[in-house]
């Protein structure tokens, strides 16, 4: 048995650990083992790679069998730099900043795929050997990897608020994008079918980077979870394609798994918003904020504002409370004070549940992670389907920094951009207390008639401070 056969078996074992890991992610109790298993599998694949045979010697040895000092040194340095920065940033990042962190790491993965493709193609060009499959897959992995890289960087910038989180649109945008997209297709066909020119390949690299940017620019805040998930899927597919060139099962299976799972998550989220994927990507949702708000709804009602003390009295006479967290809770880092409040309510024998909308926050399951950080037992977290019938029997629905996902207009107002999106029925609770910074509309730019309902009161201010005050006031009641 040749050494490379043994290494192939190692790659296969890695692929199996990836599949098992994803299976273990089915439950909170086994998920962590799953992640560690995948990490172990990854380590195995990386170690095995060092022993790949290239002719008589391993790829780390030169023709005489001596170690390639420069290459090994660079690899060691890359591991040191990447390992230290990666570990440090992963440990330091706030749980609220998780979406942009995932976007960043995802983009880097896409960048790695693209750069590997560049060197592969360059080698084809230098040797003059262009076999159809390696050629085609290297071109495609370059394009998808680059789009994933630059798209993720824009997503990161938007989420980190280095630039506006709203959709960026301009006249003729669709035409420009169409031209860019078509040129990319033409270049791909040209490169694979006609001229295998390296400069042209680099041109395609640049074009794909631009495509990634223009792809994410028109997509706005509340749609970010969908984009991040989609870009994750892209990188997975690109990595899988890179596996075609290298004939590597770990890449093929790992990439395929991620590509498919990312796509499923993406579609699930679109479904949760009752929108199609193409509407999310091309819809420039919420870009017409002021006009839509003015035109769609005209409210005559008044908004009632409560002080923390008033709100505390409402809570003190409640039997059941449902807390609805949204992005505002994440921004204000309010998850810990929310948990404190819930503890105080529980101490008074008040039943507390949390209702998590599928697209609350900036990434799927974002709220669950934040609440888990604050030590909220996951048994108290409920999905939309599980909890919606409970609102009618609940005394207080406490909405913290959520907006569009509790907007009743989604049920009936065909003019509303969020019409048809399944929402949390907080308006059916006896009292709705909405904790919100101001009356500004949410990310989708739509005014929320919930705030004008007679059973709704507002608790204006930063979520963390408001909830802390409420919690303190509850002691006095």
């Amino acid at each position, binding site marked *: 048995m040749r050494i490379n056969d043994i290494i192939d078996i190692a790659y296969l074992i890695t692929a199996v650990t990836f599949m098992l890991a994803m299976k273990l992610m089915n439950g909170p109790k086994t998920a*962590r083992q799953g992640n560690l298993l995948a*990490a172990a599998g990854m380590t195995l694949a990386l170690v095995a790679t060092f022993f790949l045979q290239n002719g008589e010697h391993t790829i780390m040895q030169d023709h005489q069998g001596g170690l390639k000092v420069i290459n090994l040194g660079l690899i060691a340095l890359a591991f040191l730099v*990447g390992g230290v920065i990666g570990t440090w940033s*992963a440990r330091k990042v706030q749980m609220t900043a998780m979406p942009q962190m*995932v976007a960043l790491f995802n983009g880097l*993965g896409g960048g790695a795929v693209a750069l590997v493709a560049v060197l592969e193609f360059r080698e084809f060009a230098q040797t003059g050997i262009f076999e159809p499959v390696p050629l085609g897959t290297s071109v495609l992995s370059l394009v998808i990897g680059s789009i994933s890289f630059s798209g993720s960087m824009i997503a990161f910038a938007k989420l980190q608020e280095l630039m506006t989180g709203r959709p960026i649109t301009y006249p003729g945008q669709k035409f420009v994008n169409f031209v860019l997209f078509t040129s990319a297709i033409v270049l791909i066909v040209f490169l694979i079918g006609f001229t295998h020119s390296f400069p042209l390949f680099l041109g395609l690299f640049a074009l794909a980077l631009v495509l990634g940017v223009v792809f994410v620019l028109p997509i706005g805040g509340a749609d970010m979870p969908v984009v991040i998930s989609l870009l994750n899927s892209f990188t997975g597919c690109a990595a899988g394609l890179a596996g075609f060139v290298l004939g590597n099962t770990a*890449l093929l299976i790992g990439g395929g*798994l991620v590509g*498919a799972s990312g796509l499923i998550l993406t579609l699930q989220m679109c479904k949760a918003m009752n929108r199609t994927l193409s509407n999310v990507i091309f819809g420039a949702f919420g870009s017409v904020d002021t006009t839509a708000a003015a035109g769609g709804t005209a409210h005559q009602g008044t908004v009632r504002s409560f002080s923390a003390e008033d709100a505390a009295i409402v809570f003190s006479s409640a039997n059941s409370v449902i807390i609805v967290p949204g992005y505002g809770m994440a921004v204000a880092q309010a998850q810990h004070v929310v948990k404190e409040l819930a503890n105080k309510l529980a101490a008074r024998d008040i039943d507390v549940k949390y209702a998590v909308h599928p697209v609350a926050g900036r990434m799927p399951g974002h709220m669950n992670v934040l609440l888990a950080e604050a030590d909220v037992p996951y048994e108290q977290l409920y999905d939309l389907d599980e909890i919606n019938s409970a609102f009618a029997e609940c005394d207080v629905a406490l909405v913290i920094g959520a907006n569009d996902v509790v907007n009743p207009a989604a049920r009936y107002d065909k003019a509303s951009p969020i019409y048809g999106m399944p929402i949390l029925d907080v308006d059916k609770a006896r009292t709705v207390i909405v904790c919100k910074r101001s009356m500004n509309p949410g990310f989708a730019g739509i005014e929320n008639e919930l705030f004008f309902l007679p059973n709704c009161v507002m608790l204006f201010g930063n979520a963390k401070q408001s909830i802390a005050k409420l919690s303190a006031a509850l002691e006095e009641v």
Partner: protein
Amino acid sequence: MSLIAVITIFILAMFVGLEVIAKVPQTLHTPLMSATNAIHGVVLVGGIYVLAVATEPIGYGVGFLATVFGVLNVVGGFVVTDRMLEMFKRKPKPAAATAPKGGE
């Protein structure tokens, strides 16, 4: 490996992905995404390979960058996922631990 074998593996892997993901609860979607994010960092294998066979400055430079990106993706991805899942693993309150979901 023959082309058809490679395509077969890729497509089957995608179906496995569809199957295993469909069962993951919403609660774990963020860690799941983060873990799959780390998994596609397996392209680092490719990064190591191209850097190992590089012979001149451009190859060294691009290969080095690819490897750094790959390491960041893998290490950052797994560490961040582990941090999140550690929080989920904390033991639930004794009362909640025995009660079935929604049963009060």
